[in-house]
């Protein structure tokens, strides 16, 4: 009881110093949490990938399309349950900064493979009837204030011209980790238009999505698909959806690594600040610690007093920082719109924040704690005034 009383009263002894240190800790823990959430958001696509879904793309590059004729050949591979396809559209909605992914798909087969996208049956039926219909995710609808029935014009970049779509349904995610920042429309519409405008771009698809019946046969099916098109004009590369998504992330991996490093540098900086605070504190109280030793308190007790104070300050800073991470990350997500499909503070991030704060508290107390515990009593008493 006496120990806790001493720890807490010592922690609040220099209010301004404690408040400033706490402020630093709060900012550091909050920044760390936000940066870690950015990193998690980067990998959100890979996290949401199903283990039985494969993606088959052109082996040379994703930029090159694949013939539509591959669909039936892939479907015939042993172990394949279903095949669909998606084509990257890259249209601009009003302004280039209003980015969200758009895919031309074969709706029935594609959505059957993605049960995590939830659509109202009646609206989906309406979408199927409308050649220019579009399905948009809830996040897009929220960000750009779109609703069912609204016209959604896109300016094509890969496929030139203005393309007008009508929002027919808005899909929700099965959970908070599901990406609801995508738009889907009929590949048929794209293909028919391209037949008129540019014959060479017709009957082409971006990637095939392959649903494998047995997760244990994913590698086998993947090899079988690629073997089918070996030495053809468009050789394929088939990989799991997760590997496919990570491949995207790897293109910007240096940025992700930089963010990771910065997040830990923030922690190192606050560690230095905290260590300095605790060193000053311990130096000022050297005579008190010597007095406690004179009275019979052990060096371990003295070190524990400093450790307790340091950890108490770190814990308070962490609690406030973590509490603020949630509203601030929501605000941040609203500001960046659909740039990050999923931007949620994860449990792992909170655990990391707690561990970092505890680490800061403990490490900052090591040197001053050791000094106070080992200083000779006579020397400590001379430090008075």
């Amino acid at each position: 009881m006496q120990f806790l009383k001493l720890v807490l009263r010592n922690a609040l002894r220099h209010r301004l110093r404690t408040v400033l240190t706490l402020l630093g800790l709060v900012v550091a823990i909050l920044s760390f949490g936000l940066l870690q959430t950015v990193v998690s958001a980067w990998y959100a696509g890979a996290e949401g990938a199903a283990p039985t879904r494969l993606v088959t793309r052109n082996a040379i590059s994703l930029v090159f399309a694949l013939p539509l004729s591959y669909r039936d050949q892939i479907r015939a591979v042993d172990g394949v349950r279903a095949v669909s396809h998606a084509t990257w559209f890259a249209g601009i909605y009003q302004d280039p900064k209003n980015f969200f992914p758009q895919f031309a798909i074969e709706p029935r087969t594609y959505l059957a493979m993605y049960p995590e996208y939830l659509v109202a049956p009646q609206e989906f039926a309406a979408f199927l009837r409308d050649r220019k219909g579009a399905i948009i995710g809830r996040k897009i609808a929220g960000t750009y204030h779109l609703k069912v029935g609204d016209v959604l014009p896109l300016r094509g970049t890969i496929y030139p011209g203005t393309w007008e779509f009508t929002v027919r349904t808005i899909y929700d995610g099965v959970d908070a980790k599901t990406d609801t920042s995508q738009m889907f429309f009929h590949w048929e519409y794209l293909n028919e238009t391209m037949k008129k405008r540019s014959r060479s771009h017709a009957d082409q698809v971006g990637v095939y999505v392959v649903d494998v019946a047995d997760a244990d046969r994913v590698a086998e099916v993947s090899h079988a698909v690629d073997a089918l098109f070996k030495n053809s004009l468009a050789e394929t590369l088939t990989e799991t959806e997760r590997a496919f998504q990570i491949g995207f992330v790897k293109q910007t991996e240096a940025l992700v690594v930089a963010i990771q490093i910065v997040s830990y540098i923030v922690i190192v900086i606050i560690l230095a600040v905290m260590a300095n605070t605790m060193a000053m504190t311990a130096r000022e109280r050297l005579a008190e610690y010597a007095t406690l030793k004179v009275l019979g308190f052990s060096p371990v007790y003295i070190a524990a007093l400093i450790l307790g104070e340091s950890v108490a300050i770190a814990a308070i800073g962490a609690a406030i920082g973590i509490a603020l991470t949630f509203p601030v990350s929501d605000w941040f997500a609203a500001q960046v719109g659909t740039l990050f499909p999923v931007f949620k503070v994860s449990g792992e991030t909170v655990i990391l924040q707690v561990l970092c704060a505890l680490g800061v508290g403990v490490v900052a107390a090591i040197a001053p704690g050791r000094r106070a515990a080992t200083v000779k009593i006579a020397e400590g008493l001379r430090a008075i005034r």
Partner: protein
Amino acid sequence: MVNEATAPLPLIDIRNLAKSYRRGGQIVPVLTDITLEVRAGDFLGLMGPSGSGKSTLLNLIAGIDKPDAGQILFDGVDITRLSETELADWRAGTVGFIFQFYNLIPVLTAFENVELPLTLTRLTRRERREHVEAALALVGLSDRMPHYPSELSGGQQQRVAIARAIIADPRLIVADEPTGDLDRHSAEEVLKLMDRLSTDLGKTIVMVTHDRRAADQAHAIMYLDKGELSTAVDVHERSLR
């Protein structure tokens, strides 16, 4: 202070004590061949110029520093041979400390400061409270229990420190310039209190002081100069002369 064949065994028996410090690569002797006896119930004043080794000798007697050579026998036990842990336990149970600058813990109240040494004992909370109240009553500060050191005068703080020094009922009280930071009136109060500790409670006191008036309160005075003790003066005998 004087060896007599009929006298009882000394409480503190210091033999050939030596202590030196290393300063800038040089060894500076502080105490050389100190031999001294203090009987139970004695009130000894140690005087001498600055740097004469008074506080060093006090620290050695109190077990907060170790000598380079010699023995300090306390009730027959050589405390120079005790380990740090044993010494800490010995101090907690045997020695009460009074410092020039009181050395109270600023974040604890007068009550909590006095209670501090008792938290190392097995006493219950209620027993501790009774002891602390009695000690603070003895030093005349019953009405200042909830006050923090910053809310007390220098004299009051030193009385709280005295209450803390006696709370564990130590056999020996060491005081390092106990009136050095006090005005004349407060110093007199503190000295009266120390005299009561010696005469009424029979505590053995060793006090370092520069203050002649404070030294006069002691039963005997010893002078320390350049690390050597000079003849003891028995204050009472001197006053009779």
